[in-house]
């Protein structure tokens, strides 16, 4: 049954055991999940060992596969050059026309099993390994492993410890399944597994109503988007199936078929547009883009490792991955190639700014990071929406490290520094002295997040902004820069409140109540002016005593809610550094936050740094980005020995060449311009911006300005309590309304809850009731009255005389017959049996006679 597609013959690409057995990467955690559920509680480490070992094994295989993928790419680049002309005419001709610059397309390694067949349609499950899959497989396995190590200590003693690890492992499995999906059905499978695990993990401490509410909110909000995914997959299937069957021998669920179909010009632009819009709605839901971003900050109700793994570094990039995976669909559907202002770019741009602004008014450190995540996801979408595929994917890669590190650091703070509180204003401050390692890691990651050279974020985020500007989206370019400055500001604020200044609340060792800091105000209620005043007074005027008092007054109802998952800390209430199991993952991630950018450094920026980076340093560009070369169809279908399947004449509709093309697209024949007959493309020719020193300096300058402004503000407001700043929201109407607007999250939740839900439940219901009472009932009454009169007439003349007679007669007949037949219904089984068989025999005899005669 293994229908492993033969690898690309003509170029003799190397393959290997790891590449062909990459499906093990997802299977091993799935098996481990079953083992944890079945035997976890009986094991010495309560099931955690299954999770760690399985993810470790996956990481090893993913690493092996990554190395072999690099070898495969190298073999194409070196070994293929001599061979290509002789083996493949079309290829040779194309390459000759393009000149030596074009790099050969690297055939993905696909191994697939058919698990369901229906009227010739084969549903497969398997692995589709190319650079993008490898990158994310390795990333997910790596981050999962670190987070599981972190969790060993963080959730120790939790009452659902085993289930926690089971869900984490299942999540990893689901994400890996999705990342390696060879068809859209498998993609949906992984996507939904992740949604389920997200729900389970956010609601891990479901005893608290807020947590279970958040879990439901996350689940339902994402579900709204999932409808888009289903519809989009259906549109793609019906659009591409016939073409895929005719040309590739696969079907419309196949990822590669969809990619090739989208670029072939076979589908109408309307179909592609509809598919793009519906699929992007799914991505909006999953990746927390505006206007569905509201679930992601609430998802922080889950344990910190969950926030770190699912809701910052891996699961939420699933939407980005979806767009990146079937990028040709979006490329054509939104006409990204011609510089159309795409839906994706607009949503991404909006998200960057609104999420960054929201991060300013959060007191919960995890919520700051959550909005930061939303904002960074906006960057990725912005990149994808403007053709900057590579920087966007690279930003997924680097962002995972530093954002995961930030979350783990926040977890470390709450675990050891602030007595399980995440409230920066009440329970933190001055922690840099107590937690130097956490502080160091936090700083490195913050610098990476804000895009300071040479930290990881610079190489990816500035690339996105640079490419956006290069592609001609000037406004979005400035939006990106503005977002970068905002990032620097809110991260400075968070850093200052957490690590600098005087210790407050739990960080100062004050525990007036025994709520263990999990008490957070119920964020679902709208913040009013009165509550702001109280908070400002408590923070601004007398931080220690009033902050603690406010905590005490607000949260009595939470006592004892979480009394059972950190019993080991009751003896040690002062802030201190966390244990090794927590610190080691954080330090590893911090190191990667510093260095991972050098996986794809821009040569020019390297020069600016004084590093001598050659041409071949852009590893991600070389190994991950699919090459936009047209490959001939017989090879693509895996039938290297068969004759070339030529397309029907109408198969490729030449598209008009527009004037605004970039340089790269013309050379390859992919994307906007049509490939040669008999060839397909799997990836459009995206252009890459050439970085210039002035742009680098501009973005660094913007970030530096952001830092300077924020540091100045923090010192003035939080330290010196500058009289003009403190209490500004009380004095100034504008400042107050702006603060309230942000504090209430643009009233989006209120909009969803009070307008949509309310409208459906109240006025609509009322209107329906009114309509029911006054229109339908009146009609019914009228009909009834008329009917009554008619009825009286009928009763007197027809009913009594004619009908009654007939009815009475039939009743009498039925009654008499019943009495006559009564003996047959004897209640005895044997009688019934004889009647049954006898009647059957008689009936059969009748049939036989009819047949014979």
């Amino acid at each position, binding site marked *: 049954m293994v229908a492993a597609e033969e690898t690309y013959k003509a170029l003799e690409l190397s393959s290997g055991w790891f590449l062909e057995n990459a499906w093990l990467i997802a299977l091993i955690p799935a098996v481990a999940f079953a083992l944890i559920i079945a035997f976890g509680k009986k094991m010495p480490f309560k099931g955690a060992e299954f999770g760690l070992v399985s993810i470790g094994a996956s990481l090893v295989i993913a690493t092996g596969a990554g190395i072999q993928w690099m070898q495969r790419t190298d073999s194409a680049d070196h070994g293929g050059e001599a061979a290509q002309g002789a083996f493949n005419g079309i290829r040779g001709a194309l390459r000759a026309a393009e000149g030596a610059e074009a790099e050969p397309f690297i055939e993905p390694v696909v191994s697939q099993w058919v698990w369901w067949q229906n009227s010739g349609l084969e549903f497969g499950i398997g692995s589709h390994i190319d650079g993008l899959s490898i990158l994310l497989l390795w990333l997910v396995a790596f981050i999962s492993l670190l987070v599981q190590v972190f969790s060993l200590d963080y959730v120790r003693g939790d009452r659902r410890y085993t289930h926690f690890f089971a869900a984490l492992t299942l999540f990893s499995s689901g994400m890996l399944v999705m990342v390696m999906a060879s068809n859209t059905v498998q993609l949906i499978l992984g996507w939904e597994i992740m949604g389920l695990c997200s729900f389970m993990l956010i609601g891990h401490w479901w005893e608290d109503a807020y947590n279970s509410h958040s879990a439901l909110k996350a689940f339902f909000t994402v579900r709204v988007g999932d409808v888009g995914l289903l519809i989009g997959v259906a549109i793609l299937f019906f659009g591409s199936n016939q073409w895929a069957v005719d040309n590739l021998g696969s079907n419309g669920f196949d990822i590669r078929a969809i990619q090739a179909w989208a670029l072939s010009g076979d589908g109408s632009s309307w179909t592609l547009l509809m598919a793009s819009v519906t699929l992007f709605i799914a991505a909006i839901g999953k990746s927390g883009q505006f206007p569905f971003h509201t679930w992601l900050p609430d998802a922080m109700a889950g344990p910190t490792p969950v926030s770190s793994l699912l809701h910052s570094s891996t699961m939420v990039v699933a939407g980005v991955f979806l767009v990146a995976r079937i990028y040709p669909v979006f490329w054509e559907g939104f006409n990204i190639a011609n510089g159309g202002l795409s839906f994706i770019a607009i949503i991404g741009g909006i998200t960057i700014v609104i999420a960054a602004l929201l991060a300013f008014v959060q007191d919960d450190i995890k919520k700051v990071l959550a909005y930061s995540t939303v904002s960074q996801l906006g960057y990725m979408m912005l990149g994808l929406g403007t053709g900057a595929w590579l920087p966007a994917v690279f930003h997924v890669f680097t962002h995972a490290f530093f954002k995961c590190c930030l979350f783990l650091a926040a977890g470390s703070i709450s675990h050891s520094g602030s007595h399980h509180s995440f409230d920066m204003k009440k329970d933190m401050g001055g922690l840099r002295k107590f937690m130097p390692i956490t502080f160091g890691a936090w700083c490195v990651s913050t610098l990476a997040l804000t895009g300071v050279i040479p930290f990881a974020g610079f190489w990816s985020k500035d690339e996105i902004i640079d490419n956006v500007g290069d592609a001609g989206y000037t406004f979005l370019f400035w939006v990106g820069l503005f977002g970068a400055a905002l990032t620097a500001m809110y991260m400075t604020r968070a850093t200052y409140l957490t690590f600098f200044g005087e210790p407050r609340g739990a960080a100062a060792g004050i525990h007036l109540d025994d709520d263990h800091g999990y008490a957070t105000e119920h964020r679902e209620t709208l913040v009013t002016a009165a509550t702001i005043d109280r908070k400002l007074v408590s923070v601004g005027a007398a931080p220690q005593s009033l902050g603690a008092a406010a905590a005490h007054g607000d949260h009595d109802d939470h006592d004892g809610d979480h009394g059972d998952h950190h019993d080991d800390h009751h003896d040690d209430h002062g802030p201190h550094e966390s244990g090794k199991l927590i610190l080691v993952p954080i330090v590893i991630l911090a190191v990667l936050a510093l260095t991972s950018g050098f996986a794809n450094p821009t040569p020019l920026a390297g020069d600016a740094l004084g590093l001598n980076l050659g041409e071949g340093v852009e590893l991600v560009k070389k190994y991950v980005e699919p090459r936009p070369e047209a490959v001939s169809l017989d090879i693509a279908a895996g039938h290297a020995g068969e004759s070339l399947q030529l397309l029907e004449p109408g198969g490729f509709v030449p598209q008009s060449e527009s004037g605004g093309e970039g340089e790269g697209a013309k050379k390859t024949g992919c994307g906007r311009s049509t490939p040669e007959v008999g060839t397909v493309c799997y990836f459009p020719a995206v252009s890459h911006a050439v970085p210039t020193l002035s742009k680098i300096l501009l973005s660094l300058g913007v970030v530096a300005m952001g830092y300077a402004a924020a540091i100045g503000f923090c010192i003035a407001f939080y330290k010196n309590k500058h009289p003009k700043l403190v209490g500004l929201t009380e004095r100034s109407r504008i400042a107050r309304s702006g603060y309230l607007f942000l504090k209430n999250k643009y009233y989006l939740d209120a909009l969803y809850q009070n307008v949509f839900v309310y409208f459906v439940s109240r006025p609509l219901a009322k209107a329906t009731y009114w309509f029911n009472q006054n229109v339908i009932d009146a009609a019914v009454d009228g009909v009834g009255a008329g009917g009554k009169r008619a009825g009286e007439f009928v009763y007197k003349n027809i009913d009594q005389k004619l009908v009654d007679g007939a009815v009475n007669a039939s009743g009498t007949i039925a009654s008499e017959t019943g009495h006559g037949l*009564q003996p047959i*219904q*004897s*209640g*005895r*089984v*044997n009688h019934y*049996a*004889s009647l049954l*068989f006898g009647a059957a025999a008689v009936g059969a005899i009748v049939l036989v006679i009819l047949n014979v005669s």
Partner: protein
Amino acid sequence: MLAVNFLLLAAVLFCIGVFGVIARRNAVMVLMSIELILNAVNLNLIAFALMNNNQEGHVFALYVIAIAAAEVGVGLAMVLMIYRNRKSIALDELSEMKG
């Protein structure tokens, strides 16, 4: 061998089973008669498989055997319950459904 041999044998068994179902008063005996009927059907299935030279009849004969096992299990459980409740398994005493 004539094809009708098997079929006629099955028909005889079937009719004897039908007679048993109608004539017997003891519930266990009725169940036995039903087994006869089922075996007659199985014999038919095998015979047709032989005549048509394929194996589908065998498969369905196996299915019928499985169903018959389930039927006997449930049937005897019911008989036992009836016996517990009424101290009798005579079917003609169970005529509460009489119209």
